[in-house]
């Protein structure tokens, strides 16, 4: 455009500096990198660099306020000899497996109910979503009170309804009960994400499919198995992957509710890593513990990128 004009008006003065900068900025090859630069800088300094530091720490005997020495993979090996770590490793899989399983099944059930014609649709959806919105650390305090050893409202209700014998379990003071409590709170917090996302998937399924199946005499159960579930598969895949990584790396609920106890029975990688790395100062070992989250992250990223790339990138 500019050169065409220049041909007509031969004696055009050189454009002002501001104009030239403007034109230069208009080039995609210039504007693009400029627009991405702040984000890139942030991610390099505050994500990539700390990550490299974590790897470096994990390979050293770093301790707060002491010069460090490179020790190779000793931290990763030593951890296996620690009871606390082995317990944590097992906890992470039990916690994630049971939580995600329950969230999935309950999420599908809730989504199916929410997709029906309801009287106060907006209100009901709003109520269902609420646990996901409130700060987890604060809502977990509420659960802490509900599981209190003396005044547990859970036990009171259980006893009143004859589910439990008085005085009922000491939820946070006994091994398996504490794990159950932590899992229940995680399900409570994560269920809305499953329900609402699966609901979106449900609403995207064409109604004609159900009408046709009904006309062919398929009952509700068969319609669910042969239409709903297969068509929900992509949505379920994404929800399970996302939830797995964030359940696996859960911190808030365990930290507030049990602090990893009793006797490490509810520690997850994030909480143990904090305890070892900050509370006892063994940064190297703490970093090694948190890096055990990495393989799971890598797997989820790989699986997500495979499906995302097909659609967007």
């Amino acid at each position: 455009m500019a050169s065409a004009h220049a041909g007509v008006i031969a004696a055009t003065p050189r454009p002002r500096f501001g104009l030239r900068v403007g034109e230069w900025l208009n080039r995609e090859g210039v504007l693009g990198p400029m627009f991405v630069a702040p984000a890139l800088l942030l991610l390099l300094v505050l994500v990539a660099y700390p990550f490299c530091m974590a790897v470096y720490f994990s390979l050293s005997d770093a301790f707060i306020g002491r010069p460090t020495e490179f020790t190779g993979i000793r931290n990763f090996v030593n951890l296996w000899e620690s009871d606390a770590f082995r317990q944590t490793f097992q906890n992470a899989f039990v916690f994630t497996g049971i939580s995600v399983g329950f969230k999935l099944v309950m999420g599908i059930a809730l989504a199916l109910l929410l997709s029906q014609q309801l009287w106060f649709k907006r209100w009901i959806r709003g109520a269902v979503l609420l646990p996901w919105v409130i700060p987890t650390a604060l809502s977990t305090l509420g659960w802490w009170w509900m599981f209190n050893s003396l005044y547990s409202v859970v036990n009171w209700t259980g006893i009143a309804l004859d589910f439990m014998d008085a005085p009922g379990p000491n939820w946070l003071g006994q091994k398996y009960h504490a794990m159950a409590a932590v899992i229940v709170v995680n399900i409570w917090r994560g269920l809305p994400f499953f329900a609402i996302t699966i609901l979106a998937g449900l609403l995207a399924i064409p109604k004609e499919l159900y009408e046709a199946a009904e006309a062919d005499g398929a009952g509700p159960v068969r319609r669910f198995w042969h239409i709903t579930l297969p068509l929900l598969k992509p949505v379920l895949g994404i929800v399970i992957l996302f939830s797995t990584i964030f359940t696996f790396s859960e911190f808030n609920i365990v930290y507030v509710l049990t602090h990893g106890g009793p006797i490490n029975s509810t520690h997850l990688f994030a909480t143990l890593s904090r305890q070892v790395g900050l509370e006892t100062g063994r940064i190297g070992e703490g970093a090694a513990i948190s890096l055990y989250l990495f393989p799971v992250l890598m797997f989820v990223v790989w699986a997500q990128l495979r499906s995302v790339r097909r659609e967007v990138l």
Partner: protein
Amino acid sequence: MASVAKRRHWKKLGIHLLLVPFLLFALFPFYHMATTSLKSDRELYDRTAVPLVIRQGVTFDHYKKLLTESEFVTWAKNSLLVTFLATTLSLVIGTVAAYALARLTFIGVGGLGTAIFVTYLVPTSLLFLPLAQVVNWLGLGDSKWALVVTYPTFLVPFCTWLLIGYFRTVPKEVEECALVDGCTRIQALWHIILPIAVPGLVCAALFAFTLSWNEFIYALTFTSSSEEITASVGVTQELIRGDIYYWGQLMAGAMLGSIPIVILYVFFLDYYVSGLTAGAVKG
């Protein structure tokens, strides 16, 4: 015909009945928190009393004590400041990055998009240990500014990812018209694209606000003195001293600490639902 209508009616009723346990599960903790925060200590620690209802009258003592005898107001102010600044910063950085990644072609655009997506999936609990060292190295140890600087690490990838999707829905022709009319790209972005993308921007801002208000592990790790911590950290750490828990005050703190989010939630419920269903948000 009448019987068909009747059967539908019963079915609808049945669905609502099936929803009741889910609703109880979702809402009961909040109900219990609220009633606890309004009960007198005498009723709270009476083991013969029914814990489900308030029988001896409502009292605001716990709230009064929380606001006058603890640093709660300072913590809430910190939370607001950090959340507001981190959200604004992330939204600006995320918007320009998303525009570039969605609309412009330049070297490395594909790789960057992937990098943003990958960081978006990195959980905060993986990085808090080394990040604490970086924060100290920046001279921000035990300061709320550490949070203003570090929260964008999870907010920017989130905003960018969400907004790339929104910018892609704006037809390319709209922008090309503006360019042909003599707009520069920046003008086109400012006058044409951003106004169209307002719902996306609101959604991103809302979730960024919620995510940073709810953030806990960074706040817990990077700040510790009472003047610098956020509401979540203050309530969970400072209100518990020794073995005596002031449950009424704790629950009052949890209620008040949730209020800004609840207000946003009531006004923007549909955005929350649409953000979740767009699959942009992790849970």
